[in-house]
């Protein structure tokens, strides 16, 4: 049989229907398709795909196990390196990671590694995976993890498996970080996937304390000096929304993407008034920005009943930082991309509500320090779009509460915590950090990779501490 150069298609919800519901868009492989897709893998002698995975999952082995229909073994292989496979199989930008390195990608389409990871994880969840709790030694050392997002969860899971008593402190009333408040239901189901993956980590013996704002309820020093934690991992993310600083940003109807998505995903405002948190979406909605968060906000606005949703992005399509698949999904659903366009003012009416967005056209100039061509305004090209709602999705920065309340913790000019790339060690002994709080906003899997590295480094640190 000739090798197919294309991935097996994954069924998706019809764009016309899905634009009006919050159900998952991509429906996942069935068993037969998964096995057939696994058979496309050439089992390279020197597998490149593993190098593209930030947590180095043994990809050829788990794909081989799918081929042989040994699905229970396949999930074990994945879980050796990744505690949240149902999440990563869905939201990783595989085209820039494992699948980019796949040998098949040179001639055609790579093996659908992400979809296969998702298949195995979903199947395990449906069948009720058994997870054995870790047995702790009487004198097990204690580690505090601040933040229950991807980096904290992966760090905690790994540490538990190594026999440490781990407590995660989470500021919100639900664990998951961006998985719970940021990425929408239609990309990442909350009850079916996120809650279950978190439960699996708790089953290992990890304790999660919700409603616990580090820096306010306790300081890092207090955890170590008064509450007996031997080490601390900071995985607090980049959750502070940036605004553009243009006139009119405080008008009613202007949201940060964080607020808009938190209301919708975490507080379930799309089910108001059954759920008490309200949300407001007008007929015309502009989302400013071109990343995954912008796509998520735009597609959420559409599902909340907006008639016309714009993406307003200052560079061109080629520079859109969002995942290709998400951009395609957004286009299929009818999102209007205003590229090479930048807002200069939010226009308001007398009652203080948004009524329009004044934009200016841009052109691409010389490459800047980062190598991307810099957008330059085209003089005199201002125009107004009528608008009821504006969502700002131009990025986030680190929340300063931890840095402000932890003496001796070195931070960068931008407010990120300075930590060694390999060991995740900060300037403060016993305190480690990883994920977006160190790197600035990046991906789920990079944060998980950092969490894993930190767990290994904490293990070494604590072994040494004990032997002293």
């Amino acid at each position: 049989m000739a090798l197919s150069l294309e991935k097996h298609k994954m069924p998706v919800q019809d764009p016309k229907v899905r634009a009006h519901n919050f159900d998952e868009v991509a429906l996942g492989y069935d068993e037969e398709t998964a096995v057939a897709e696994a058979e496309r893998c050439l089992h390279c002698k020197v597998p490149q795909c593993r190098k593209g995975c930030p947590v180095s999952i043994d990809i050829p082995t788990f794909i081989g196990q799918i081929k042989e229909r040994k699905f229970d073994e396949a999930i074990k292989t994945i879980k050796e390196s990744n505690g949240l496979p149902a999440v990563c199989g869905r939201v990783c930008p595989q085209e820039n990671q494992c699948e980019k390195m796949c040998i098949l990608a040179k001639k055609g389409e790579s093996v659908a590694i992400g979809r296969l990871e998702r298949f195995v994880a979903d199947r395990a969840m449906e069948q009720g995976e058994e997870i054995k709790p870790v047995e702790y030694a009487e004198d097990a050392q204690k580690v505090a993890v601040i933040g229950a997002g991807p980096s904290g969860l992966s760090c905690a899971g790994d540490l538990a498996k190594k026999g440490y008593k781990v407590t995660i402190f989470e500021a919100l009333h639900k664990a998951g970080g961006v998985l719970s408040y940021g990425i929408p239901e239609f990309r990442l189901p909350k009850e079916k996937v996120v809650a279950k993956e978190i439960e699996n980590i708790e089953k290992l013996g990890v304790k999660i304390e919700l409603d616990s704002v580090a820096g306010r309820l306790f300081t890092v020093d207090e955890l170590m000096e008064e509450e007996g934690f031997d080490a601390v991992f900071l995985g607090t993310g980049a959750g502070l929304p940036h605004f553009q600083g243009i006139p009119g940003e405080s008008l009613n109807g202007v949201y940060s993407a964080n607020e808009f998505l938190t209301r919708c995903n975490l507080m379930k405002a799309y089910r108001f008034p059954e759920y008490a948190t309200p949300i407001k979406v007008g007929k015309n909605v502009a989302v400013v920005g071109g990343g995954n968060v912008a796509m998520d906000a735009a597609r959420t606005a559409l599902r909340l009943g907006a008639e016309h949703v714009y993406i307003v992005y200052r560079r061109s399509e080629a520079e859109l930082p969002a995942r290709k698949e998400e951009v395609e999904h957004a286009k299929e659903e009818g999102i209007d991309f205003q590229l090479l366009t930048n807002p200069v003012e939010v226009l308001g009416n007398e009652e203080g509500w948004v009524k329009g967005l004044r934009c200016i056209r841009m052109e691409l100039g010389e490459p800047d320090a980062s190598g991307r061509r810099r957008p330059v305004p085209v003089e005199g090209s201002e125009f107004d779009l009528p608008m009821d709602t504006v969502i700002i999705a131009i990025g986030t920065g680190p929340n300063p509460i931890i840095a402000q309340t932890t003496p001796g913790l070195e931070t960068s000019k931008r407010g990120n915590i300075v930590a060694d790339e390999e060991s995740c060690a900060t300037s403060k002994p016993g305190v480690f950090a990883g994920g977006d709080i160190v790197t600035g906003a990046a991906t789920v899997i990079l944060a998980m990779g950092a969490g894993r590295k930190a767990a290994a480094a904490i293990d070494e640190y604590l072994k040494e501490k004990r032997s002293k």
Partner: protein
Amino acid sequence: MFKILKKEEWSPSVFAMEIEAPRVARKAKAGQFIVLRVDEEGERIPLTIADFNRETGAVLIVFQVIGASTMKLAALNAGDSIVDFVGPLGQPSEIEKFGTVVVVGGGIGVAPTYPIARAMKEAGNKVIAIMGAKTKDILIMEEEMKAVTDEVVVTTDDGSYGMKGFVTNAVQALVDRGEKIDQITAIGPVIMMKSVADATRDLGIRTIVSLNPIMVDGTGMCGGCRVQVGDETKFACVDGPEFDGHLVDFKGLMSRQRMYRDLESQEKDHVCNIGLDR
């Protein structure tokens, strides 16, 4: 889950509750607030801390029934629990020996001025409390306030108790009698805080106000609570809630507070069968 230890009805729409939250009580300082959620379908609502007891682990909140969530909260009793109680949040009040300090509370805004008055007194200030209420029967915490201050002035809009008029009249009266005021902290409805700030601007009295914009998380991650202070955009939940009243854009604040008014009334109608709404 957080247990309600005690509930009191202070007036037909004002309730006080002691919530069992030992860790919050241990860290709470005057001027800070909490965010609570009544049940799994509930929204996150911010309330200023009215008192705390580090020994018993109780945190006192005082709230007025104004919408669906406060109505649901008011329907609970001692022994019941709420799902979330997050805090202490925000920056504590700046407490030091200023000299003569006046705390001005309007309506249920009196409650959060109580721990501030107490802390100011402990810091060695002469503390005068001005307490404003529409009528005598909705005045709260008079005895408590007397116990921690040097002087209490009560005003009622209708003159049914204390001095007739608004809290600003009482501030003026203090100035007229030659009281040298070093700082005023005013907490209450936005319109009251604005009036106090307007009145003290020309008098050159430093005036701190505690803002109450709409909040979601209360930890600085959404900016829903942003307010203009001078030339800067501030997040009330992490930079505040207290700010220099002479720099706050009260008009913008009032406008943003109205953002969900229509939905709020819709929601209130949705669950409003328990007869608490007046």
